[in-house]
């Protein structure tokens, strides 16, 4: 056990609160037409901020899917760059993935886990002690790529943590129709490494499970699968209408206690935070959101010619010609 310090706890709270606030704003901005679409993390803040707290960005590397906004935020990823994915500025986000050690957002469910495995193999070959963290969904656990990655990781005893956010839903498909056996954590035993189930709405528990798994991997003891059980409180994305597949009553019943309220009460009770701190966080959030909003709105559109860049290290002669044709055609 590595008990968090008071500052660390405050940091956890601050990040969860910011993630929540930004998440709510992003949905609002989508309604206002500022961004075209967004997949909210509402209710997953404890899982996301808790796991991020276990990642050491001086040496580890995160392989997210598309619903890891809270992880990005907690890892101090350039949020404007990150959100560039969601406002259509650049698919995957335009944050620097090497500097932030956080890959571009991934849109093919399941395909990121083998990348984490390859990177982890690289650490082992280089004699380094970084750990790869693959973010997987309950839906993502069904994909063949996820299985192949876990098997590789097990065979090679690699420093990878498969962090499975079991939010009970893959768009409209509930866990019972997605995961045979019902437990994703239980899959790990089949690969010979530990599968840990953790209350994904308990930020301290997630952090601890994350730290344990990262330490284990760093010691060369191999992969861990963490299944953080939480709930996707919002729609799959802003375009989704959950009313078509679950009732509000079910949402209330299955969502459980809000992870932020829950942590706030406990932290207040334990004297880790106080009303003054909460007021400070609230005060911090307002201008921060406003700042992101202003920048997002003012983000200049990308020049169309960018579609020709970074296809290859150098423009091919075909692309040189095509770019010329494009610039003719663009004068519409």
């Amino acid at each position, binding site marked *: 056990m590595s008990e968090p310090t008071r500052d660390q706890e405050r940091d956890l709270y601050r990040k969860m609160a910011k993630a929540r606030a930004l998440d709510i704003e992003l949905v609002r901005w989508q309604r206002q037409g500022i961004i075209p679409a967004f997949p909210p993390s509402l209710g997953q803040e404890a899982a996301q901020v808790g796991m991020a707290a276990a990642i050491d960005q001086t040496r580890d590397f995160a392989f997210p899917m598309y619903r890891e906004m809270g992880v990005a935020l907690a890892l101090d990823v350039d949020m404007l760059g990150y959100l560039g994915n969601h406002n259509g500025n650049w*698919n995957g986000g335009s944050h620097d993935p090497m500097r932030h050690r956080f890959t571009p957002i991934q*849109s093919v469910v399941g395909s990121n886990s083998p990348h984490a495995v390859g990177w982890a193999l690289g650490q082992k070959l280089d004699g380094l002690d970084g750990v790869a963290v693959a973010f997987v969904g309950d*839906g993502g656990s069904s*994909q063949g790529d996820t299985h192949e990655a876990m098997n590789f990781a097990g065979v090679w005893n690699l420093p990878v943590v498969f962090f499975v956010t079991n939010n009970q839903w893959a768009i*409209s498909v509930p866990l019972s129709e997605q995961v045979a056996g019902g437990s994703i954590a239980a899959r790990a035993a089949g690969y010979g490494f530990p599968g840990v189930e953790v209350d994904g709405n308990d930020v301290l528990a997630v952090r601890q499970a994350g730290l344990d798994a990262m330490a284990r991997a760093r010691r060369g003891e191999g992969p861990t699968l963490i299944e953080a059980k939480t709930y996707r409180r919002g729609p799959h994305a802003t375009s989704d209408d959950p009313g078509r597949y679950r009732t509000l009553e079910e949402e209330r019943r299955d969502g459980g206690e809000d992870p932020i309220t829950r942590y706030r009460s406990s932290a207040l009770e334990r004297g880790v935070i106080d009303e003054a701190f909460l007021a400070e966080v609230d005060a911090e959030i307002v201008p921060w959101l406003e700042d992101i909003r202003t920048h997002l709105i003012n983000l200049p559109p990308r020049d*169309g010619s960018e*579609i020709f860049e970074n296809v290859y290290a150098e423009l091919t002669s075909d692309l040189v010609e095509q770019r010329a044709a494009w610039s003719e055609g663009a004068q519409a």
Partner: protein
Amino acid sequence: MTDTQVIQPSTAETSIELLSVQQALNRALADELAADPRVLIFGEDVGTLGGVFRVTDGLQARFGKERVFDTPLAEAGILGTAVGLAIAGFKPVPEVQFDGFSYPAFDQIVSQVARYRYRSRGRMTMPITLRVPSYGGIRAPELHGESTETFWAHVAGLKVVSPSNAHDAYHLLRAAIQDPDPVIFMEPKSRYWQKSEVDVANSGGTSGAKIVRPGKHLTIISWGAMLGRAVQAAEAAAEDGVEIEVVDLRWLSPIDTQTIVESVGRTRRAVVVHEAARTAGLGAEVSARITEHCFDTLRAPVERVTGYDVPTPSGPLEDEQIPSVHRILLGVQKVLEYRRG
């Protein structure tokens, strides 16, 4: 060659209706489910939700969870399941949620769906229709706007069809489901909400290509979501007195060479328009076929107006990739102005 008798739908009272492409597809699925108890619909979110584009809306409620059901999130599993169901005598109509998610199922499609009839010497047939919401035009994220037709057209054993309007959406989907061979059904997702007249009782023929606008100066060949822009380009050109014939290819495999060649034989000039990347796009095949058949009559090389050789961009940048009416007209102009050197 792909002609199929379409069963008269029971619902047809007045036969012409104004339907969106999404409604027409939904109707076609419902009519097939009703007409043939062996038809099954499955995929991610096609059941309770009715599909992210609502193409399967209401079908589970009407036909039950045994006929219309959700699967776990695994495209290879979905297509592999379709193969097994076909062996068991069903007519599977699976969906992959977006074009780019056909890639995880590529092996099952190419090595299994396309070849089982061949491998089993005709004893195990694959009357599978894979619905693929396709092409760009909705500024979606990466891999949600792919034009995959080349991949399938190159694979023997598969048929590929793509409607450009609601009427064809209805009839071609029914024809695909009734087809004894596996069909990749590419739905023009940017047209889902576009309404036009559908005559459910009279298909007007579901085989081969269709001349959707007659003309005498030049032929544009296109399909799917691009067909509409081809017609717009033709309309714009008409204002300048240029009469463009527009061929809706519809079946991308096998290709109806005859209709194309007859048209270009008359117009002597051709432009092929598609969204997919240029190199090894289906436009190359169409171009090669036209040249092979019309070498003497062609007055200019076949022009290809296509997406560029870049990964399909997402968001607003997508607009740079998809041929605009302006770009189509530039292509038309180039062909019209061509003079032998």
